[in-house]
């Protein structure tokens, strides 16, 4: 009760940031087959997990607020949203997809960073920043499966990506994650399995920027 009074008096507000997976103009439904234009084929997605970290808020281009200990695992099967308490007016939100290199070299962590979350490689140190798995008839693999575990924190295989989006203090922040550009035919055919830091992982991560936008 007292806490609530204090937070109101400082003008802090709790914002929900949520992520909605889309393929073009359609919501993606887990494990259901949908036509993907850039793949020229149907695709069905079974796993979608990614880290959202280092959340910043900006007002007129100036950083006004930064979340501390800012690591959130978005997992289709568990949760696709989280809350941030912001004290200031803002007109832009910034975040990274993935885990920064300092965290990658500093040992074991708990919470969303716990290695039991399935986002840490075992045979080589480092977090998987973005994981997507599914099937498509164009993948010439067993069961037509593709698995992209995109990560890597060391130059030249760095895959963390910063995203900045215009938004408003008035509404909760709803981010559309449109996978259209990511699901390219050439990647699905030539590299259906990306499981370690590599050129291909860097290429896929470079597409993230085009995937995130604020819901209209």
């Amino acid at each position, binding site marked *: 009760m007292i806490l609530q009074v204090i937070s109101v008096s400082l003008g802090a507000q709790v914002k929900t940031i949520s992520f909605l997976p889309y393929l073009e103009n359609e919501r993606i439904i887990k494990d259901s087959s949908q036509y993907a234009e850039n793949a020229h084929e149907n695709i069905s997605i079974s796993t979608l997990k990614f880290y959202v970290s280092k959340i910043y808020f900006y007002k007129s281009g100036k950083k006004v607020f930064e979340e501390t200990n800012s690591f959130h695992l978005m997992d289709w099967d568990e949760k696709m949203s989280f809350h941030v308490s912001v004290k200031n007016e803002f007109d832009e939100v910034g975040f990274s997809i993935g885990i920064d290199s300092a965290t990658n070299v500093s*040992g074991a962590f708990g919470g969303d960073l716990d290695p039991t979350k399935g986002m840490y490689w*075992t045979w080589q140190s480092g977090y998987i920043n973005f994981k997507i798995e599914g099937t498509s008839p164009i993948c010439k693999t067993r069961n037509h499966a593709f698995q992209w575990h995109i990560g890597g924190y060391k130059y030249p295989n760095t895959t963390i990506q910063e995203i900045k989006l215009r938004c408003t203090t008035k509404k909760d922040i709803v981010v559309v994650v449109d996978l259209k550009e990511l699901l390219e035919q050439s990647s699905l055919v030539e590299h259906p399995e990306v499981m370690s830091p*590599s050129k291909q992982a860097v290429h896929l991560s470079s597409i993230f920027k085009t995937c995130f936008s604020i819901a209209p």
Partner: protein
Amino acid sequence: MMKHLLILLFAFVLLTAFNNEVQSLFHAPNYFPKPSYDFKKNPLTKEKVLLGRVLFFDPLLSIDGKVSCASCHSPYNAFAHTDHSLSHGIFDSIGNRNAPALFNLAWQHDFMWDGAINHLDVQALAPISHPKEMGENINHLVEKLQSSSRYPSLFFKAFKDSAITGENLLKALAQFQLTLVSNHSKYDEVRQGKNSFSEQENKGYQLFLQNCNACHTEPLFTNEQFECNGLSVDTTLNDFGKNRITHLSVDSLVFKVPSLRNLRYTFPYMHDGRFKKLGQVLNHYTNNIQPHPNLSKELKNGIHLSSDDKADLIAFLMTLNDSSFVFNTHHQFPKEFF
């Protein structure tokens, strides 16, 4: 005023008690460099070290319940493995590499022969998940530990939380391994002025300084770097070392420089355990270095040692054995828990 003094005194007592606990678990002589492990992020306590030790010796960590960390890292071999040149895991599978000795890990910043692992805390994920080592996965392991009769209370004692997490499991294993400090060899006694080298050991020491110290740098007897020491490629394994991780040609045939402490207990030698005897190692350095673009510059002109020199060098290397480390009961199987 009195009250402030009391609080200060109390804080002081707490702080010294804490320091004493860490000191009793982890101690290094003043000629050792500063450890690279950040103890502030995972401060040693008796309870966490004990939990880590129980885990280290527990075959429950493997999928078939038969292989523990100690199966491949035995305390009597300075935590290396001597029966096999390549590691021997679940269902009798043979791995690709020789299990290295484990000690003075607090000074190490890259792990594995190829540096695949960047921090001691996360190292254990590799053997736990390796299909030819323990074949487990960390989630399933956490469930097994949670439903065992032994672990929830041990985790509670260590972390004030009986809900087991991957983080706490890994930090406990790291804590035990951090206490594996080897610094009671004859060499250490000589450094501390408590003993002296024989004439032969002294000659060997001089030869060592001239020929080996650039890579096997005292007092840890490794420079913590990766080098190519001119071993020929074993074509049945095709192990190119650090290149596996970086995919860079300059890292081909480049391996972690191992410490030369405790060689008496850690044979066979090299990443694939190809040499059983130190004599063979020295013959490699004097006769068999393979030319390669990545060969370290210290070895480009070869190493020249007479047979007397070799005997002297081996006499010196034997002063690096630390029997009090190898037979330290605090590092052995904790029978009272099994």
